């Protein structure tokens, strides 16, 4: 039973981090109606920025986090301007292809620059907290704290700021938003920057607990897809619930199944969701984006 509770804690921490990862993807989808296949690479870039900042540069972890956010935001904005904007009005497949290509440019660019090896990141806190026999590392608390703060900031931004209102307006109807004078192109870029920053933050937040290598982005991409699809595209509450479940499920599979591979849970989730609730488990609930959930026409 002790193992169970310990794995529950670890799974919840991973799941919390997944919230950030998936939130970025779902935000971009909700506003631009674009599925970004390069999103996993923002996660990798975030972790890598954390390593470079805390390792070779010797900077403290909080600074590393800020650097990672900046790197992610920049990468997101570049994705929008160079790889998504020129394809507006073309088929959605065109954007899949260009961002899929981009993900390999980022991945192998980093691989060529730094080499393929596991690197560890020094977190903000060492030591741990003991709840009975369950050990909670202080860094785990820091990670969860970062998730809570970041999600709170994003919600506050969307609900309470000028650009947030514009983002929600564009999410509902970009044509109407343009008619009333919102600079839709700018809103798209800002949204992509936030999405990239969230992905990179997810990467740097979890990096002290795991390790960093150029290839983490590929698996994280599929995880993010599964969460967003299962949570109902662009539904924030659904995304959070599924992310936590998936984190816990992965931890349990890794622990309890012989030669268990946690990644399997992603696919089981995906198949179950497509079987049971094709529009997402939480498709009725409307997230912070004010019901950007898309409804496929017809039966």
């Amino acid at each position, binding site marked *: 039973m002790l193992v169970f509770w310990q794995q529950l804690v670890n799974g919840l921490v991973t799941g919390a981090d997944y919230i950030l990862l998936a939130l970025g993807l779902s935000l971009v989808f909700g506003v631009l109606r674009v599925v970004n296949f390069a999103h996993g690479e923002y996660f990798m870039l975030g972790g890598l920025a954390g390593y470079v900042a805390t390792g070779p540069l010797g900077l403290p972890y909080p600074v590393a986090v800020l650097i990672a956010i900046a790197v992610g935001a920049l990468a997101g904005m570049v994705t929008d301007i160079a790889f998504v904007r020129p394809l507006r009005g073309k088929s959605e497949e065109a954007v899949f292809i260009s961002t*899929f290509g981009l993900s390999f440019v980022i991945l*192998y660019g980093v691989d060529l620059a730094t080499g393929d090896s596991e690197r560890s990141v020094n977190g903000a806190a060492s030591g741990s907290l003991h709840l009975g026999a369950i050990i909670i590392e202080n860094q785990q608390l820091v990670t969860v704290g970062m998730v809570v703060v970041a999600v709170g900031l994003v919600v506050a931004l969307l609900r309470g700021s000028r650009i947030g209102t514009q983002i929600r307006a564009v999410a509902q109807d970009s044509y109407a938003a343009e008619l009333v004078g919102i600079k839709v192109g700018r809103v798209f870029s800002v949204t992509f920057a936030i999405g990239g920053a969230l992905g990179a933050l997810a990467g740097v937040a979890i990096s002290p607990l795991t390790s960093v290598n150029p290839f983490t982005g590929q698996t994280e991409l599929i995880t993010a897809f599964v969460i967003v699809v299962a949570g109902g595209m662009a539904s924030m509450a659904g995304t959070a619930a599924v992310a936590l479940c998936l984190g816990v499920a992965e931890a349990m599979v890794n622990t309890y199944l012989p030669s268990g591979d946690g990644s399997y849970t992603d696919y089981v989730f995906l198949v179950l969701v*497509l079987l049971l609730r094709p529009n997402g488990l939480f498709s009725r609930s409307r997230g912070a984006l004010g019901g950007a959930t898309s409804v496929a026409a*017809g039966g």
Partner: protein
Amino acid sequence: MTANIKRIGSARAIDRRGAANAGVRVVVLAVALLVPLYAGSSFDLQLAELVVIYGILAVTARFMMIDAGLLAFSQIGFFAIGSYAALISVQDTGSLWPGFAVAVVGSALLALIVALLSLRLRGFFFAIFTLAFTSLVGLTANQLSFAGGSNGVQIEVPTMAPFGSLGSYDSIYWATVVVAAVVLVILERLGHGPIGLVLRASRDNEAFARGIGLAPLRQRTAAFIYCSVAASIAGVMFGLYFEFISPDSVSLEQVLLVLVMALVGGSGYFWAPFIGAAVFEVVPSLVSVSQSVIWLVAGALMALLVLVAPGGVVGLLVGGYHRLRGVSDGRPQPSEGPVVSAMDEVTRLAGPRLPAPGSAVIGGNGRSLRAEDIKVSYGGVNALSGVSFEVRGGGEFIGLVGANGSGKTTMVNVLSGFVPATSGRVLLGDTDLRRLPPERRAARGLVRTFQDGAAFRTLDIPECLDTVTVAQSRWALLVRRLRRDRRVDNVPASAISGGARQLLMIAMALARKPDFVILDEPTTALGAEESRRVIALLRQAKASGISAIIIEHHFDVVTELCDRVCVLDHGQLLAEGTPAEVAKNPSVIEAFLGTMGAVYDVGIGVGQRSPDIKLSADTQRSPDSRLTTDGQPKVAP
């Protein structure tokens, strides 16, 4: 008139594309046949084998992506299944055939499952799901002990059946070439036949395709299964030749490789992916760079192809050739042909397919189309709050009018099955249509057209009309090649005028020989002459006993065509009656004019994008309700 159509530039572009594609096909076959003769080493033949195998993967991937509009990341997954099946079968039974059977049947079943789970959803679900499928295959192969776990399967093939002593690399190469030729030529034929027509039509405009009764899901599933099995067979040949497969072969990098190969040759050409396969197999073997550099270049190329050169290598060659010859690049130039000629063309080609006036078959079979207390609410907002009306079969035309936002479009979406009603019933005769999707309603005699008449962008006029034939008979056209009219050039629907497109859409809907047709703003944005032709066609439909529901802002068109008019206002049926009655109805006038004492004409729904009904104030006094249709509210009498 035909001569005028021939001047439209894109016709030449499509002819050239056909010629370029035929050229690529000849070159591919010639090279495939000649390579073994000139192969200096086993390494050369090995490269050729790889080019053919990846060619199969890339050609099928391109077909799915471009012709069927399906971005499938699953080719590598099925490829691995084929390789594993073949090698495990040879290893454990000494024979290839059990493995071959598993590769074909197993892949077909898996593809069917993937299609059932993800194809009826929107495009990105399919893309994501196929990507996950490929990752899952790799993950599973890693776990299975009989598949060698992370080591994969490695065996000696040359002694194996069915090739026996012929199991040399040469004979496997020839077998691969034959398999590739058979699989791909069949696919190319299918692409030119009814299946390809439905795939392209529904890729161009899925809603309209379903509106006239094409059910693309079936054809998409078939195309996906065929291409997946082809990938699996390519995997079998890979396994035989290279005698090795491991989970490392199932990576996203391989997925990328296949897609880049598919696009690099030129997305518009069936055989061009072989050029991509040759480039990506041969070039890396000639230069000494690390694998990472190759993936980096492949990724960059993939993005660049979509962003700047969708025509790929063949597109650039063809473009360059024609620039040298001083010919225009042949992009669609809609302004070149006179408007009327395309309309004449539609009339001429559609004529024989339209139901004859007074034909006995048509007449609604005594049925009527009834909407009973239809309510639709979008998250608390009531778009329709309890609307009922009836259209009698046999040629009754109902006009649906109202300001923008009054619920007209929602109403026809409910009738045609694109939007589910929150409550209420739609009855065709005695049949409740509630659970039927648009294409099944079309099969029962209820079709519809759309306002923004895009028809099927890339199909020409005869092809557009052929889609109706395909929608009508499921099997006849599978064998017979579609009738081609050689007298007209291939003018894609995107290159003809808006009026001709609207006329074409309506002609297609009518050629379906429905009992009821729903027309969404058939004359909006058309010129006077174009409107006249559309109205003439609708008159003909009425005479032949087809009933219609018409959303229309031009009240003169309504008066001319419709027996009765339903006026919607804020989701409710405000008035119903003959056009003359409705124009006089006090509540209609009050709702649309505000005050009864208006002394000048007011446009209903002032400031909307399209001109609305203009009720002149003197309708209250004069029985012959004068209605203006010029879209300009007269400010003072």
